[in-house]
């Protein structure tokens, strides 16, 4: 709520004060509450003074929305954005109680984000050791139980360890401004797809789901952050298997069109109901469901996938019909094709 950020001590000016007399005080304080006949009639800001040539305060006043005491920060920020105001007056039961600066909220949010990130990194750091211990146990067990049935289980366990370790590494990376975080380099698309398929093959086999890969023989080159893009493809492939019933199939195809390469990951699974589609890419989405074999879901996978696609300029489209399956289409900008 905005309550802790409301300034109850504010500068006041009379509506018929001359601008030249009070201008410097308003600029110094950031705003002033304007009174006419002992009643507050509005809030004047340096922006109002800059926008208006008039010599009386009352003529420089612009209409601004009122914030209600007890409003949520998110709602207050939305009102401020829509009205392009950095400062607004706060009211409680039609009575002015103070002013709210956007800067105060921003500072608080920054501190909160930094604290959360720091806590998350501490947790991730503490997780490293137990996860590494797990890998050790898996390796020991693998040596003791060598047979083909267990081999697949150990293979799946090792893949799960690798994914967990990668996630921990991502969290432990230093915070870099998103504009500088993406290392854009050329990468070969087929190689990434083949690695992703290899990673999920055991999971697919365990669930009796066939994975078909129909890609051209040539090497297809695009550019972006290859590790992130692989993660996005991993998420889509994992979902395809998760939401397909045993006995079903997942097919990966490609199409080259003009300057783009379209990669389609199609399953014949349970599909996505229309009412869930608007929320598919939200963080901790309410559209999350348990997999067809009871697989758990965090509701984060597709949110991360979309973020990765946006930051790598990869187009993302979903077509789905309940009971028939889902197609995820990724659109990559081509930088070259090399015959194998």
């Amino acid at each position, binding site marked *: 709520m905005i309550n802790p950020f409301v300034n109850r001590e504010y500068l006041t000016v009379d*509506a*018929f004060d001359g601008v030249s007399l009070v201008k410097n005080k308003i600029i110094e304080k950031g705003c002033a509450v304007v009174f006419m006949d002992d009643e507050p009639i509005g809030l004047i800001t340096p922006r109002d003074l800059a926008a*208006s*040539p*008039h*010599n*009386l305060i*009352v*003529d*420089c006043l612009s209409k601004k929305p009122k914030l209600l005491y007890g409003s949520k920060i998110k709602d207050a920020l939305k009102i401020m954005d829509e009205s392009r105001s950095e400062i607004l007056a706060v009211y409680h039961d039609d009575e002015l109680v103070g002013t709210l600066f956007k800067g105060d909220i921003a500072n608080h949010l920054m501190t909160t984000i930094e604290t959360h990130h720091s806590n998350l990194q501490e947790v991730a750091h503490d997780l490293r050791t137990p996860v590494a211990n797990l890998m050790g146990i898996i390796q020991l067990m693998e040596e003791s139980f060598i047979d083909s049935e267990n081999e697949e289980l150990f293979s799946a366990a090792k893949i799960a360890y690798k994914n967990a370790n990668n996630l921990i590494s991502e969290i432990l990376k230093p915070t870099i401004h998103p504009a500088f975080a993406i290392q854009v380099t050329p990468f070969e698309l087929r190689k990434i797809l083949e690695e992703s398929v290899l990673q999920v093959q055991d999971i697919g086999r365990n669930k009796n789901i066939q994975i078909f890969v129909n890609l051209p023989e040539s090497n297809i080159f695009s550019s972006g952050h290859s590790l992130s893009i692989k993660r996005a493809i991993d998420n889509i492939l994992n979902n395809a298997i998760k939401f397909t019933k045993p006995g079903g199939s997942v097919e990966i195809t490609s199409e080259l069109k003009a300057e783009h390469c379209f990669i389609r990951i199609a399953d014949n699974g349970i599909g996505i109901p229309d009412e869930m589609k608007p929320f598919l890419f939200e963080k901790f989405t309410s559209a999350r469901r348990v997999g067809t074999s009871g697989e758990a879901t965090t509701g984060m996978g597709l949110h991360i996938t979309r973020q990765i696609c946006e930051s790598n300029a990869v187009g993302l489209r979903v077509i789905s019909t309940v009971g028939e399956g889902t197609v995820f289409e990724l659109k990559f900008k081509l930088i070259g094709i090399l015959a194998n």
Partner: protein
Amino acid sequence: MNERSIKYSINLNFEEIKLPPFQDILIVGKNSTQGKIGLTKSFEMLIPNGFETIDIIDERVETVFVNKHILKKMPAEKVLEILNKNVFPFISDGELIRVDFKINISIENLEVTSSEL
């Protein structure tokens, strides 16, 4: 040594003025230093209920103050139409324009019956 003497020469003239400094119509141009609310308040203090403030949508004009005597004789829309055609094109940014607007009404063919005499 001669002492310096200073002589002052003053030109003095004076005339009667009336407040407010317009009797009929005042046009407030866009971006003038005097704003609408301040002007309205000051005119109201000088001649309570004497002027009508007409806000208009025009790229040159902020507002128009019209003496109510004029509006008794001619509707506001007609007054604005005349001003728009004949005065607004000459208004520059930030100007205050005083318009003398005298209405002369003559009625022809007024019939009076003998019973009304």
